[in-house]
């Protein structure tokens, strides 16, 4: 891995804070408190923390879905807005959010269609992505006919369609059962290792975070701050055997302790 080269960060946040007005309670909620974060190109970074710690907020700021109250965000030197308009951001939400009137193929090709790509070309690219996420044979099927895990595969293929420079994933497997979730983790590791894309991944599960990531960022309860950056020095390509590696349990233990301390503070 190119971790030692200390490359220029692909995504960089400096002093990012977010506060919300809550008019009904006449109070202000601080969701994020001066977050500094640098994500190297081609790495997999997980954000982990208790509910409401602002990890989803952080992801939505990078995707230009919300603006920070203070601070700067840059994606390869661009603002989130211009990176988004240049279609360099892929986003996988907790819900698959597929269009129920479109086939899997047309759902995956949607971002390319919005970009104005000709039908033949976007369909051939979408077919390759459908193959990559293991959905071959389901191109013509409607989303309502898919299982939860398959819907999320389609959603991941859609997010990859514009060949984004960074993929943001907001608890994409949170609604799946444990067996499906383990399988999806394996598939995601494979897709990540094959494409070399940069991923920022939000999760509640420290085991999932360690299994997938190069870096696990632990956040405190609200107002969200970064309390620790755990470097995961486990070999790639990863498979389920990684969990038998003593380092795996050690890192999970460190992460779990950090999370608990966050609660006590």
């Amino acid at each position, binding site marked *: 891995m190119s971790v030692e080269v200390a490359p220029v960060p692909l995504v960089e946040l400096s002093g990012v804070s977010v506060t919300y007005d809550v008019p009904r309670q006449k109070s202000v909620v601080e969701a994020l408190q001066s977050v500094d974060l640098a994500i190297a190109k081609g790495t997999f970074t997980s954000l982990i923390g208790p509910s409401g710690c602002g990890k989803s907020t952080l992801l939505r700021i990078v*995707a*230009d*879905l919300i603006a920070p109250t203070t601070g700067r965000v840059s994606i390869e030197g661009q603002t989130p807005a211009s990176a*988004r*308009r240049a*279609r360099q*951001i*892929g*986003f996988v*939400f907790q*819900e698959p*959010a597929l*269009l*129920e*009137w*479109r086939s899997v193929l047309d759902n995956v090709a*949607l*971002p390319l*269609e*919005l*970009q104005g790509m000709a039908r033949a070309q976007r369909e051939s690219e979408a077919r390759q992505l459908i193959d990559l996420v293991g959905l071959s044979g389901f191109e013509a099927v*409607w989303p*309502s006919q898919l299982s939860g895990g398959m819907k999320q595969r389609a959603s991941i293929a*859609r997010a990859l369609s*514009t060949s984004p420079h960074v993929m943001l994933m907001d608890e994409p497997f949170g609604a799946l059962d444990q067996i499906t979730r383990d399988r999806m983790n394996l598939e995601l590791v494979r897709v990540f290792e094959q494409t070399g894309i940069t991923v920022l991944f939000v999760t509640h599960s420290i085991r999932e975070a360690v299994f997938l990531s190069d870096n696990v960022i632990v956040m405190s309860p609200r107002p969200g701050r970064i309390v620790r950056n755990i470097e995961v020095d486990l070999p790639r390509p990863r498979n389920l055997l990684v969990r038998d590696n003593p380092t795996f349990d050690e890192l999970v233990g460190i992460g779990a302790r950090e999370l608990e301390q966050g609660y006590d503070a």
Partner: protein
Amino acid sequence: MAQRFGTLARMAGPPIVAAVVMVGLWEGVCHLFSIAPYIVPAPTRIWAAFVSKPGSLLFNGGVTFLEAISGFVIGSVLGALLGTAFAYSRLLARGLLPYIIAANTIPVVAIAPIIILWFGHGMQSKVAVTAFLSFFPLALNMMKGLQSYDRVVMDVFHVSAASEWQRFFKMRLPNALPYVFVGLKLNVTFSVIGAIVAEFVQADKGLGFVIMTTYRTLNMPRLWAAMLLSAVIGILFFALIAWIEKRTIPWHSSMREDR
């Protein structure tokens, strides 16, 4: 093919049997109790009234159908446009929606004479009454349909840098279609009612005109024939819309056949 015929027989069988039994009972009761034809004419008498001058009834039925479908199209299109405006402008919806709902509660029989006065004695005034009735269901359903999109899907479009037009045509409009068809199906019934009520007020052709004139002469079998023809028109019209719906939104959960 044989399987398809079997499905058809299973679907159409019960209502056909029920119709045969009901018509048979009706015929029998009329004869058995010697019910006067002007109170309840027997089915055979109604049929005789129909076949004695079928051209005339079919012509008048055609006039009513033409008025109904023209008003249906005009009212639905205008309603859909206003519903779209409401969905995009909260201010407009807040200002006008109460009056739209109030106007919708005006009984059609009360407003029909006024509209006929405005639009004259021809078919155009009947079309206007029908359009008036068809306007509200589409305005309200279009607004609701365009507003009922999934927030996360909107986020997907935002991240994909979709234009406002793309958001409308590729997301909000297809999402609104099931609502649109609810409105259109309501309008099928309303438009036939609208056309006939308008003909009651003033007309020299159409099924409403036939019903009024046969009522004055107590030619009840012919009146019943006109009434049943109006029902047939409504059923065929409804079937047409349902057929279009099935081809337009086959993906929607209401279209699943395993229910």
